[in-house]
């Protein structure tokens, strides 16, 4: 059974890729086991994919349904193969893994799955027999529907009153929790340049505002000064204070 499959296993799988035949790993497993045709070790997934892609290119059509089913099938094959690989290693590593117990559980799951598989077949037959049946399905003519509202109570003005609230403009949303930035980058650059000119050197902690967002603006301004070559930044340790000092010969001043 096993010896000659290497060369021939992949093409049959591909040509049999009706893609409805295989639905999931269990289905695949049951089919493979019962047919005893293919040793999963010998199925070269890369080859199946290559052939499928060729087939796809030849046909010139892209069937999304069929292709997604193909991807599911290939993924299932890969998962099974990788699980088998893991299993072998696990057997060596895990002494307490009882192979008989594992096999028993697998059989149990397959048996349970098969039950639903058979039920699905029965449903398929019921579908064939009944899905084409035509039942009375027209809507009831509106004039036959029971009227629940006494007509006298419905005046035109009632309708207008019901619609009025919908036409009114909603109140403006409350944005008070969104704080306005007190400083802009340009202003902050200006302030820091003045400080640099006056003091020649200062620390970030000394000049940074309390507000988190404003601190961030100050930090960006420092980076800007650094990249334009106006200031040197020096930090002795991570998260430590930053010393800002003026560059001896200032480059072109921005802003």
């Amino acid at each position, binding site marked *: 059974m*096993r010896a000659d499959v290497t060369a021939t296993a992949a093409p049959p799988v591909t040509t049999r890729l009706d893609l*409805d*035949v295989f*639905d*999931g*790993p*269990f*289905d695949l*497993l*049951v089919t493979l*086991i*019962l047919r*005893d045709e293919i*040793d999963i*070790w010998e199925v070269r997934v890369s080859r199946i994919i290559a052939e499928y892609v060729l087939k796809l290119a030849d046909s010139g059509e892209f069937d999304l349904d069929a292709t*997604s*089913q193909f991807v*599911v099938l290939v993924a*299932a094959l890969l998962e099974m193969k990788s699980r*088998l690989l893991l299993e*072998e290693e696990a057997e060596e590593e895990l002494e307490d893994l009882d*192979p008989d117990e594992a*096999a028993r559980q*697998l*059989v149990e*799951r*397959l*048996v*349970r*799955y*098969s*039950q*639903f*598989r*058979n*039920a*699905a*077949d*029965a*449903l*398929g037959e*019921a*579908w064939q*027999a*009944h*899905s*084409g*049946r*035509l*039942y*009375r*399905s*027209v*809507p*009831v003519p509106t004039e*036959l529907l029971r009227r629940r509202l006494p007509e006298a109570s419905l005046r035109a003005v009632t309708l207008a009153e019901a619609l009025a609230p919908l036409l009114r403009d909603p109140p403006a949303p409350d944005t008070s929790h969104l704080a306005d930035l007190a400083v802009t980058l340009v202003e902050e650059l200006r302030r820091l340049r003045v400080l640099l000119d006056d003091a020649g050197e200062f620390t970030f902690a000394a000049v940074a505002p309390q507000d988190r967002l404003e601190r961030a603006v100050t930090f960006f301004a420092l980076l800007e000064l650094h990249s334009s070559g106006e200031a040197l930044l020096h930090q002795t340790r991570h998260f430590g204070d930053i010393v800002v000092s003026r560059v001896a010969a200032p480059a072109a001043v921005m802003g």
Partner: protein
Amino acid sequence: MLPLARRLEALLFISPRPLSTGVLAQALDRREEEIESALAALRIEYRPGEHGIELRRVAGGHTFAVADDCAADVRGFTGAERPDELSPALLETLAVVAYLEPVTRAEIAEVRGVSSEYALGALEERGLVEQQGRADAPGTPVLYGTSERFLRLFGLASREDLPPLEGFALRADEVDEIRSRLHATAERRAR
């Protein structure tokens, strides 16, 4: 025909969906037993082969349906088409939902051994499966169940009408077969 049977006939004629015995009893102000016996008389009147329509029990009620041998004429006249075929993957997912409902996506995947996201979506789109609230479990997953349309399209009077799942169990020799093949595969690999 019994006067009550004629009145039932009129209601069933005009109703767009199956009417349960309870609804009919309420509408005509009669006891359910009376409705049942009048329905039996009506069913004899509309027995298959007698008229172009038949009286059928489906989806929790009684309704008129076109006789099978007249369906082609109606289709030709109205342009109504048969619903699209269901793939084996869809049927299988539907079977799991129908027998285990209400059921979560994870439970379906557990039975099928494969994620059933696509199949569930397709079944929902076709109106065969619908969301029925959420499970009281971590992550409150969505619970799925079958719809009234499911019952109609599969010719079921109610969910109890599904053939029992036990009837689909593998025979003992089939289970043995799977077991021995698994062992054989394992041994072959061990070599």
